[in-house]
């Protein structure tokens, strides 16, 4: 895991950039496995699943450019 300062800054900026709505159905539970998923990469449309990263710590960041 790279621990450059910008990672922490990024996490901080994303967390303060907006607010969550109440009652969201996406509700990952601490201590429980994160549900797996497969989605296409933005750049080459290659399918990528969360489980590909088993063995590494992951910061999963859901965001939008707006």
């Amino acid at each position: 895991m790279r621990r450059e300062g910008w990672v922490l800054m990024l996490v901080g900026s994303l967390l303060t950039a907006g607010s969550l709505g109440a009652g969201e159905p996406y509700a990952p539970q601490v201590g429980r496995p994160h549900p797996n998923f497969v989605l296409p990469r933005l750049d080459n449309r290659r399918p990528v699943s969360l489980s590909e990263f088993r063995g590494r710590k992951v910061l999963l960041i859901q965001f939008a450019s707006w």
Partner: protein
Amino acid sequence: MLLGVTQEQHPDRCRLFAQWKGFDWPILHDPINLLEAAAVPIVVAIDEQGVVRSVRPKPETLEQDFLDREFHTGGAAPVPMRPPTPDPEQVARQAGAENTAPAWRRLGDALVLWGGANRVNEAIAAYEETLRRAPGDAIARFRLGVCYRLRSEGPKRHPGDFQAAVRAWDRAFAAHPNQYIWRRRIQQYGPRLEKPYPFYDWVDQATAEVRARGEKPIPLPVPPSGAEIAGPVREFGPEASPPRAPDPEGRILRDGDGLIRTEVVVVPSRIPAGQSARIHVSFHPNSRRMAHWNNEAEPLRLWIDPPPGWEISRRLLVAPQGDRPETNEVRRLEFEVRAPATGAGTVQFSAYALYYACENIGGTCRFLRQDIPITVEVRR
């Protein structure tokens, strides 16, 4: 490592954003909100075994709470191995065999995520099959809207696609008013009075700064415009000068040959009394008649007469001219209206456009008028 998921409709815009910001980690595209997040941003810290260790971790304690910490899985179940990428053909066979709403929705998901714009008609059909069996499936309805919008921007576009997208998003959001991802999709094209932020006003700055670094900016097939880059406002500003109706007596010859086809989209599709809507009017030269704009004459103008009691952002709009003497691009004009504080029902706006349009290459150009019916539904 960082793993991004973006909930945007347009992947290329997020690619440009990532290029601008120098994000070098993988970013996945979830245009249909497969993960069902209700809002972004959201950060989740996941350990080596795939177990969630923190939701919205605090940046100031991220290192000690997550990065430097060793986790023991205890009794937590291991993350399943990588599931296979959905094969649309296989999912289609399952949908046909099961013939249930969930099976048809899975097919729509597979088609739009893995088939893209080429299979958008099939994705629309799959979501419509879903909704025939489960009309209350708001998730399928939102995704249907995503497909309509996707089709509206491509070569397979049908007239009415954009409005169909907005209607689908409106209905989905009405069923789940805390779903901010769905709400943002409407606001992206909606009135400035209801917007939280401009959405894509950063694109020009990003493009310039990427270019200044000596890089080639990610191209945008559908550059954001109009509502997508307009900032929020609290009130309609006054018009620069009191406009005068350009053809008050209706003397200009009507476009009876249909040289220019118009399309009107109201966002949101229905509004409560006292609320506002953004009206998108697009002008499409008739390709069968080789119609095009004459850019050496007066520009396209749109005049709107609001009904009594309605506010309007501007009554006279003028479209920019093309960069050559004759062009045939689609032209778009947008304005906003606000309904009176009371009352409900279907309201008709009187509007017309004036333009110089030509037929065939080097053919006759005429100054024409087109009356454009605009209907806004006000709900109680």
